[in-house]
């Protein structure tokens, strides 16, 4: 396949960026999108031009490290029949002669580091605020001492599959991190072990979400439509219910 790539190049977080056009020939339709970018970088290196920086690690759709806006959609979701990460998108989703636009996540909470690489440490800070169950190693009771209903445990698992890639934020017109935040809230709210800190958690995580430069949620739904793990929009409804319920509780008031 012959491909024309328009790639965002930006030297560092303070530099001005621009789209740069590259031609690539002999792309295999069996290669993944990132392998196609590997090929571009080999070509650039052989021409003594600096390769394009992009994040990747597992290349099997589970680590959450990769994330590129492809032809306007996060992870190239609208090029693919099924939910996908960038690394699992394959070139057979494109046609010979296609022009493909490649950009980083563009959102206030994720500043660009270089080219297609962004800083997603704001997600870690949301988790630090309360995305855990406070249990020290060694203090756990026997695993079967608290049964958990299967239906809720399965629901917890469904949202716990979030890989923290940030596609939801990149797709949101407001740059909200609500789908990510709600996935963790919903995961822990559906397990008996998550109950003691449930109200405290939702308040603290929402506060951290707002402090870290994410925008507000208006239930647009773009986040869920690009999510590679198909985290449902209803998890945001769960978050809202928990948040409202927490307003009538004392939990969390002392953490200011």
């Amino acid at each position: 396949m012959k491909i024309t790539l328009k790639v965002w190049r930006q030297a560092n977080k303070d530099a001005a960026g621009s789209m740069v056009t590259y031609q690539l020939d002999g792309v295999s339709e069996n290669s993944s999108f990132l392998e196609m970018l590997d090929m571009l970088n080999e070509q650039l290196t052989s021409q003594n031009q600096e390769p394009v920086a992009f994040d990747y690690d597992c290349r099997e759709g589970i680590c959450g490290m990769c994330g590129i806006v492809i032809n306007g959609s996060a992870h190239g979701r609208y090029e693919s029949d099924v939910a996908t990460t960038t690394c699992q998108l394959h070139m057979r989703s494109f046609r010979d002669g296609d022009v493909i636009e490649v950009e980083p996540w563009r959102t206030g909470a994720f500043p660009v580091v270089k080219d297609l690489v962004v800083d997603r440490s704001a997600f870690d800070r949301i988790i630090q605020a309360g995305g855990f169950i406070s249990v020290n190693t060694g203090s756990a009771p026997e695993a079967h001492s608290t049964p958990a209903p299967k239906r809720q445990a399965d629901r917890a698992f469904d949202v716990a599959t979030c890989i923290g890639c940030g596609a939801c934020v990149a797709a949101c017109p407001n740059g909200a991190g609500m789908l990510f935040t709600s996935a963790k809230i919903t995961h822990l709210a559906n397990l008996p072990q998550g109950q003691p800190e449930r109200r405290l958690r939702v308040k603290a995580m929402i506060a951290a979400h707002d402090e870290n430069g994410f925008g507000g949620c208006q239930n647009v739904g773009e986040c869920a439509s690009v999510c590679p793990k198909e985290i449902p929009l209803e998890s945001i409804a769960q978050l809202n219910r928990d948040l409202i319920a927490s307003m009538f509780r004392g939990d969390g008031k002392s953490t200011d």
Partner: protein
Amino acid sequence: MIMAATVKKSAKSYFSVGEEIQDTKAPAGPIDKKWETRKFEAKLVNPANRRKLTVIIVGTGLAGASAGATLGEAGYNVHSFCFQDSPRRAHSIAAQGGINAAKNYRNDNDSVHRLFYDTVKGGDYRARETNVHRLAEISAGIIDQCVAQGVPFAREYGGLLDTRSFGGVQVQRTFYARGQTGQQLLIGAYQALQRQVAAGTVTMHARHEMLEVIIHDGRARGIVTRDLISGEIETWYADAVVLASGGYGNVFFLSTNAMGSNVTASWRAHRKGAYFGNPCYTQIHPTCIPVTGEHQSKLTLMSESLRNDGRIWVPKNPADAEKDPRTIPEDERDYYLERIYPSFGNLVPRDIASRQAKYMCDEGRGVGPAIAETDHATGETVERRRGVYLDFADAIGRLGQKAIATKYGNLFDMYRQITGENPYETPMRIYPAVHYVMGGLWVDYDLMSSITGLYVAGEANFSDHGANRLGASALMQGLSDGYFVLPNVINDYLATGPFEEIDDSTPAVAEALADAKGRIEKLLSIQGERSVDSFHRELGSIMWEYCGMERTEAGLITAIERIRALRQEFWSNVRVLGVNEDFNQALERAGRVADLIDLGELMCVDALHRRESCGGHFRGESQTDDGEALRHDDEFAYVAAWEFAGEGQSPILHKEPLVYEAIELKQRSYK
């Protein structure tokens, strides 16, 4: 193209033999009392003194994140490092199958002793008994801990945990979270770690890569890192250093490891005195999606549970390779595993299934696209098909498509996504790939390496799996080391601290800094003709051919000579563009590939010296009449711990004899 060495040397000229070593930390007494005794005898650190003691942890996978969280909870001052943008990305996240624990929830005669026995046997009697027994003892507590953290394990309708059998054992002791157990366990450990970041006990340094270990006065006292965004080279000081930096399967270039997985932290420590244990022990997984072309950057594993219902075959006639497999009649198919191993059939152990697939493809009976590869005998490029069919037609006919979809739906979807083929209609193609290394830095019972104060945990150490790891045991070991072993033994060493303060002017520090900076300057100054990746691919091709599924003396000697030539070319002809003071991924990779080249040579030396077959290490010269791995317990019942003897010097072998008191040695058979 580099040709084979013309002068053939003897195997013994590649290494020298030093004194034997022993583990001195496991206490005397019956095997089931050793861990209790060790915990009791270990010196303690008063809670008020812990914050004055600093521990550096490199890597945030299951072992590193769990150790960081637990030591933080205990009150130590922890500094945690990872090269990814967040500790949640570590490659433990990709583990699929599950985690073993001797809970005996199934009432199927499971016990600590049985898990211990299965693990030692599975490791083909090349693991240290004391460590493995402790792992089995700790296993049940790991499940308790993870459930309390909110890990959403699979449950039954009664609300209790579900388990399944896994990896050729006869009990159902594997806990799982669909096909994403590693992800869920890692997120649990990551959240515990983030809780300690918020509490101020752990300081996280993401996008930092360790380049050197600092050894002062005979103790590991810190590390040198590169900030992967700014390029800044920094020093960090501590009273103890823990390496939990994972495995080195990427020495083969194509593996199921993440692209960033590397050996640099371990290798830098090895060069400073940490012995490398059993580097040649590699696990190759038989059911991975085959290579589709030269663009391939990594391989994807599919759970071996597929072999329960799929039948493996190749066409009898190589000319049928391009035919639609559905049109090849039964009598022209070779169900080779069923033919050679009639009692185990398609369920033979991983190494046998892998090796037989290679033989079929070497014979020219492979299927799928013909891919250019180097014929290492002639040095020429040839086209070979590297794949065998895994066919579900029988199972679909017998059980219906719906039943198969319920069992394997996610795997079939993944296969379709990657290959563009529908496995419900046409047979899958599979081929073996490297996915785990049992070898790693040598450690004693306390997980301390041969450098005082340097600890090694998880896949990075050699400790618990012997020559072959059982399914669902990697997650168990990582979390055992991090949650329960290290936090109960590292205190024995830290109790003798805090140690003398050092700074950048201390000679050992200045030297480590100069080494790290010198290497980077050298890499950037070469300005050669070949990309880093091209060297990595060539290294992988040599390793896969000669140090992969089957190893021979002649092949390994050839490999060593080629790797030496490759190293020479790398350091004179690699092209790394850009500067250090920038986000420079080619520079990151160059440093990692340089260390993988050195490691590759040591792996070949280790494989060469071990003239027996055991577990994942198959020496062509040592097999039974049936083509099975043949051990030589009289000569090789030891851990090979390799000492770095200096640049260009032959490594020194230290043998740690393996003593089996609780378990009797046996030869395995799967006919």
